[in-house]
């Protein structure tokens, strides 16, 4: 319990610094937000009044405090382009992002264990070499390009899957199952793209973890006791090698989330990432800042969960 509290307390300054960085980005943004709301015909006096309303006449420190208070109330400002509230724009896109990222995360975890175990246990075999080469490829191919190639091949050439989007708009009134199937069809390619990029790091770690553990004394002892190789692998080695994967997963969250944002953009997946990337092109700083804040908060929470899960599974952590 003490460990968990300590972890949570450590996350708080993290979040505060994060908000400061987000605020700084807003402040450094070129062009005056007040000017973006209006056309040139508005009088100078009105501009000053508007700046006053927006709080731009106060010192930067005070502006930050006011801004932070608003954020805590869920008021993150308004989009320069659509004038919609940033909070609403992001939360309405959160489900699509969570659907994609959580399912890709689950797929990554499910597939990394068998790949890593078999590759590690049969070190030097054909399977191991294949996994090694494939995971290196996964690390090296630009994911956005891979996504484009998938679209080119599966959607444009073979016409098997939709090129982009979330759901066929003609299905709004269809039954839940048909809708789910259609969303799944749209999700397949982005999911595959994220999977290939994300699987590599974890599988490499898992494989070397298994290799290291198989050389430990307690495994030798288990062998000496005559336990079957499968039993040793799955009962003894697997559990210990699986532990560090949780930490690695937590550490690779920023990369995974940042990467899946670009993928969302490529596949026009209506999530937070697509919103953020489009905001970059539109120079829509409030939305951009909101996306950075939200995704960072997601990452910090993910890391926190990883830490807690780790301590829960491995009691040794709490003592150290």
């Amino acid at each position: 319990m003490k460990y968990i509290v300590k972890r949570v307390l450590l996350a708080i300054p993290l979040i505060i610094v994060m908000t400061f960085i987000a605020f700084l980005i807003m402040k450094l943004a070129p062009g005056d937000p007040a000017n973006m709301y209006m056309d040139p015909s508005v009088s100078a006096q009105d501009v000053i009044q508007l700046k006053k309303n927006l709080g731009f006449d106060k010192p930067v420190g005070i502006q930050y405090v006011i801004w932070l208070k608003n954020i805590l109330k869920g008021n993150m400002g308004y989009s320069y382009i659509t004038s919609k509230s940033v909070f609403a724009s992001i939360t309405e896109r959160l489900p699509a992002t969570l659907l994609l990222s959580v399912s890709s995360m689950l797929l990554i975890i499910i597939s990394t264990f068998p790949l890593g175990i078999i590759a590690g246990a049969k070190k030097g075999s054909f399977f191991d070499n294949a996994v090694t080469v494939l995971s290196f490829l996964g690390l090296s191919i630009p994911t956005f390009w891979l996504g484009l190639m998938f679209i080119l091949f599966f959607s444009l050439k073979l016409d098997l899957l939709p090129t982009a989007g979330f759901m066929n708009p003609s299905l709004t009134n269809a039954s839940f199952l048909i809708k789910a199937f259609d969303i799944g069809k749209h999700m397949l390619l982005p999911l595959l793209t994220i999977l290939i990029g994300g699987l590599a790091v974890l599988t490499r770690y898992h494989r070397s973890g298994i290799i290291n553990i198989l050389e430990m004394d307690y495994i030798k002892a288990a062998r000496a006791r005559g336990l079957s190789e499968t039993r040793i692998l799955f009962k003894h080695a697997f559990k210990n090698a699986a532990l560090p994967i949780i930490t690695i997963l937590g550490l690779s969250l920023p990369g995974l989330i940042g990467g899946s944002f670009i993928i969302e953009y490529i596949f026009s997946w209506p999530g937070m990432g697509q919103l953020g990337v489009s905001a970059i092109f539109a120079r829509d700083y409030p939305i951009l800042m909101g996306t950075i804040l939200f995704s960072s908060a997601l990452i910090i929470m993910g890391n926190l969960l990883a830490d807690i899960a780790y301590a829960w599974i491995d009691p040794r952590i709490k003592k150290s």
Partner: protein
Amino acid sequence: MKLAKMSWSFKLSAGFLALIIILAIIIPMFSNLDPNGFDPNCIGEPAAPSIRHIFGTDDLGRDILLRLIYGARVSLTVGLVSVGIMIFVGIFVGTIAGYLGGWVDELIMRFVDVFMAIPTIFLILTIQILLKPSIYNVMFVIGLTSWTGVSRLVRAEILSIKERPFITAAYARGISHLRVLIKHILPHALNPIIVASMLGMGTAILTESVLSYLGLGIQPPHASWGNMLENSLSFMIDAPWMAIAPGVLISLTVLSLNFLGDFLRSGLNPRESK
């Protein structure tokens, strides 16, 4: 590390990288071919790969192979310079944190934590739109956002070494702190730094390609692997070769760097090589 013991992946990677580097240096030096020059026979429409243009031409009739070679200069330079910045800042910050310890260390490491929790690509994109997109900004932004791993590595190495007897002995002999640091402590961290720079260079090349693909990196008409991809987007169906060649080249280059890094990791670490 004898040549015979090196794996085929190492030889292939080293060979491939050497080929790219030599081509990128030599071709522009000894030929007057212009990467922005167009073939009057192919203008207006991308031409498919042929004997005249092995990788085809783009929509303006420019030879893709030639642009890839010129793009290699840009992409490799971006990789090298940004890794240089990454290592310099990483060593600097990691040394201060590990060497001074105490609250300085605590403060720096919390800062590193924050940095590591932000999706770097978003930070880079944001900074790129605040600045003007240029090759220098691309290199600086990538370098200044990727040093956290190196700084942790250097700090950990220093923490584990600074209390060892041979360091205490060095102080006892009256050697200055800076000299102990450079002569005795940093060399111990050298191997992981070399590995990190190989991997970092791959990441930098990937990041450059994303940036340029989104139009926030190297600006046309200069060729970079990333902006060739951006350019290919409107011709995906009719001229897929425009998108395939740069992507394959990026993948193979980064793959080689990763293989080299991995090989050096196991080769430089006696515990893993047995």
